[in-house]
Every structure is written in C-alpha cells, then in structure tokens.
C-alpha cells in the first residue's frame, strides 16, 4: 500500500536578516489510516513541514510525496486529497461561520445544501451551538472559531488531514471535544492524520506513532509506548529530556 506521506531529506531555510534552517534532512513516512504526531517547541519546524505537505511551501532540498504524488510537481492532484487546520483559525472574521464554510465548500466543489448538512453534523459533534452558525466569527470565542476551522477541514472528506496544533489555546472542555472528535473520525472515516502539537499527553493519547522535532531535526520517532519502553520513562516529556538533554517545560518557555 502506498504511503500516505513520504518525506526524504527535506530541507528548508528561510533568509530574512539572517539565515534560519527550519527543516534539516527530515526523512519519515506515514502509513495510510495512521495518526502520526510531531511534537516540538515553537520554531522547531512543525508548521514548516505542514506547509510543505500542504503544497504552500517549496522545499530547498529533498522530496515529499502524498499518496505517491510529489508535493511540488503534482500539487493539483494532491489538493483534493488533503485539508488542514492551523493554530490560528484563519477566516473572514466579519462574516458568519456558515458564510465562511460555504466559501470553503464551493472551493472544494461542494454544493451549498450538502455543505451545510455536513458542517452541522460535524459542529454538533464538536459541541458547537447551532444558534451561533449565522453570527459573525469575530463574535465567537477562540474555541468556537477553532471548531469551525475543524469543520472546514473535515467536511471536504480529505484522505489526509494536516492538523497544526489544533487544540492550542483551547479551554479544557473544547480541547476534549476536539480530541474526541479526532478519535471518532479516525475510527469511522479511515483518515490519515498528521498532528503537530505542544501537548505530550495529547500525543500519547491520540497518535499511533510520534516524532520529537527540535531545531528542524527529528530527534527520535516511534510508537509512544515503544519509546517509553525503550527509554524506560513514564511519559514522553521524560523521553524528550533523555533524548535532547533539555527539559520540555524549559524548551517551551524558551520558545
């Protein structure tokens, strides 16, 4: 079976005042129907990797494939197969959740009625109050906006979802609702998910495999339980300390 994602020697450097290597020789693959977690502090390269896989960034070196398609050459074949949730819910904030979702739906060739039905099913499961569906997004809380962003990503029925810190900044209840929805979707829809997160607990709970990324490099990758066993540690934060020589909370604060 074709890998859902395959990256070989990915490198990306940004140059503004000085040159910053965001990704450095990243090689990994994700099986179909797997949740692969990438955990690392801010600026470690998680979002850069997700942008490359979203066909929004061109790598300097190396290759990335989604279901066998090259992200640079075959971007038009990849785009119907993927969707993404970013850490900040990017919307036209002045218009309603429904108007934003209808816009997204049309870009993916979905009719208005079908889009509305699908969106409402997802939003109900996420605990989004239906009464707020026609209110401007700027009047909704960050948690509610993020739920609309999750509906936007799921209702186009992608084969690969790129979730870039989807629960960062959410209140505990919203976070649980989103995590529960991700788990349910995996069991029903047979999606593949790449989940980037700061939350070690979330990684352990949701992911089949996980990679710890720091300074643009994968420090370690494997199944969470295997990593705990391999390093003989009770949790991934301890594994992070063992592998990088830095305490997770310390790195989080620095970033």
């Amino acid at each position: 079976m074709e890998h859902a994602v395959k990256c070989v020697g990915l490198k990306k450097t940004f140059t503004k005042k000085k040159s910053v290597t965001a990704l450095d020789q990243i090689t990994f693959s994700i099986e179909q129907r797997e949740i692969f977690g990438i955990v690392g502090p801010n600026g470690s390269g998680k979002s850069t990797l997700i942008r490359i896989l979203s066909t929004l960034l061109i790598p300097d070196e190396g290759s990335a494939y989604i279901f066998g398609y090259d992200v640079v050459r075959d971007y038009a074949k990849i785009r119907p197969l993927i969707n993404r949730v970013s850490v900040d819910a990017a919307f036209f904030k002045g218009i309603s959740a429904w108007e934003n979702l209808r816009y997204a739906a049309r870009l993916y060739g979905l009719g208005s009625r079908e889009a509305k039905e699908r969106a409402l099913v997802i939003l109900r499961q996420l605990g989004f109050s239906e009464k707020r569906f026609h209110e401007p997004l700027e009047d909704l809380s960050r948690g509610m906006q993020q739920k609309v962003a999750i509906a936007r990503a799921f209702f186009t029925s992608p084969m690969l979802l790129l979730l870039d810190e989807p629960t960062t900044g959410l209140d505990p209840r919203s976070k649980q609702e989103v995590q529960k929805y991700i788990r349910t979707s995996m069991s029903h829809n047979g999606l593949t998910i790449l989940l980037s997160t700061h939350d070690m607990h979330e990684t352990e709970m949701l992911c089949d495999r996980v990679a710890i990324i720091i300074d643009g490099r994968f420090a370690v990758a494997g199944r969470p339980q295997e990593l705990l066993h391999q390093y003989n540690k009770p949790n991934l934060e301890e594994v992070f300390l063992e592998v990088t020589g830095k305490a997770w909370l310390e790195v989080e604060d620095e970033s």
Partner: protein
Amino acid sequence: MNLKAHGYGSIAFVERNFALIKRYFGWELVFLSYNIVNALAIGLIGVYMGKEMVLYLIIGALVWGFLSILFHEISESIAWERWEGTIEYTFMAPISRFVHLIGNCLHAVTYGVIRSTLILMIVIFFFNISIKDANLLGLVIILLVSGLSFVGLGLVAAILPLLSTEKGVYATHIFEAVLLLISGVYYEIDVLPNWIRPLSYISPATYTLRAMRAALLEGAAMKQLLPTILLLVAIGVVLIPLGMLIFREAELYAKRTGKLKRSG
C-alpha cells in the same frame, strides 16, 4: 475537477465578496455617498466652466469610478485574504489560479457595474442631462472592453499585496493615483508636461476616456470607435494572460520564500 466544480469555485469568490459587502454595508454607503457627491461636485465645476464641460467632466468621474473599482477590487481581494490569513486556505484548495482570479474579476465587474449605474442615474437626474444623440451601444462596448484591460492591470497589481501585505497595498494605491494623473480623466492629456505625457499612451484609461467622450459628446459612429475598441481589446488580451502569468510567478516566489504565511 469538472466544469460544475470550477463554476462553484468562481461563484465562491463572488458570493464571499458580496457577503463582505453586506457585512460592512455602512462603509459601502459611506463610500457610495462620497462617490456620488464627488461626481456631482465635478459636474458642478463643469456648470461653472460652461455647460459643454458638464458631461465632459462627468464622463471622467464615472469612467474613472468604474475602472478604479475593477482595479481596486481585484487587487484588494488578495490584500484582504493576506490580512485575514485565509490566502493559504484558498491557495491549497483544489481550484486553479485561473478560476480563483476570474472569480475575483467576476465580482469586481458585477460590483462595478451596479455602483456605476447607480451613480450614473443620480447624475443624469441631478443635471437633467440628455444623452439622446449619444452612441449608447458604442458606449457600453467601450466600457466592457476597457474593463478587460483594467482587469489585467488589477491582476498585475494583485501581486503586490501577495508579496507584501502592507507595503503592497500602499504600492497599489500609488499605482492607481498615477493612472488617475496620466490618463486624462478630467482634462486632455495635452496639458500634461512633456516629460510625463508619454506615460499617458500606455494607460488604457486614456483610450477609454477618449472613446467614451467621442461616443457621448459627439455621437461618434461605431466605425469611428472601432480602432479604439480593437486597441482596448488587444490591451486586455495581452494584459490578462500577462497578469495571470506574473501572478503565478509571484505565487511560486512566495512559496519558495514562505511569504504566504501570516503566522504560526
């Protein structure tokens, strides 16, 4: 994607932009009122200068209003997406850049026609203008073909906010202002200083205004207007694909340098 899906794609931009207009309708009323008052004030200057100048100046105000809406709406739709951070979602959606940009152009033309027609009706009523001797068919054709060239200019200008959200918007306004200066909107280009006059020959608005005035003030026949119509079509035929091409190159540059991202 099939044709139906591409149709949905184009409609997405029209629908979204009209939703934004509805949301900020108060501002729409403010800008519309300002445009109406501006057209009337310019017409009144014409009354002061002599009655034959009224229509001359009003044509300038109306045509410039229409063309600047096209130019502005197309380039600003990209700027707005950059401000909101939604451009990454639009760019990763399964629609071609052609469908994306044509969708924005479709909205700009519809919006421009509605606004300009409204202002025209108010101006005709206010000044009790008679246009019974005008070549109205010629007038409509000129407006449509000049729309093509301004859509092309809008596409070229749209790369500026694509590459730099804030500075790009500054630059598009300066570009628009220069077009206003050099295109003979309220005066003949002969009055421009010699060193600046050559610029007026590369502005499609110069030819649009000249032909519009000929059709409205002199009732010029289609045969007389045809060379200008063909010239404007040619400018549009060159500028639209050129605009698309430049936009595509700018997109590639933005994807190489990471300029599409807002944050995160």
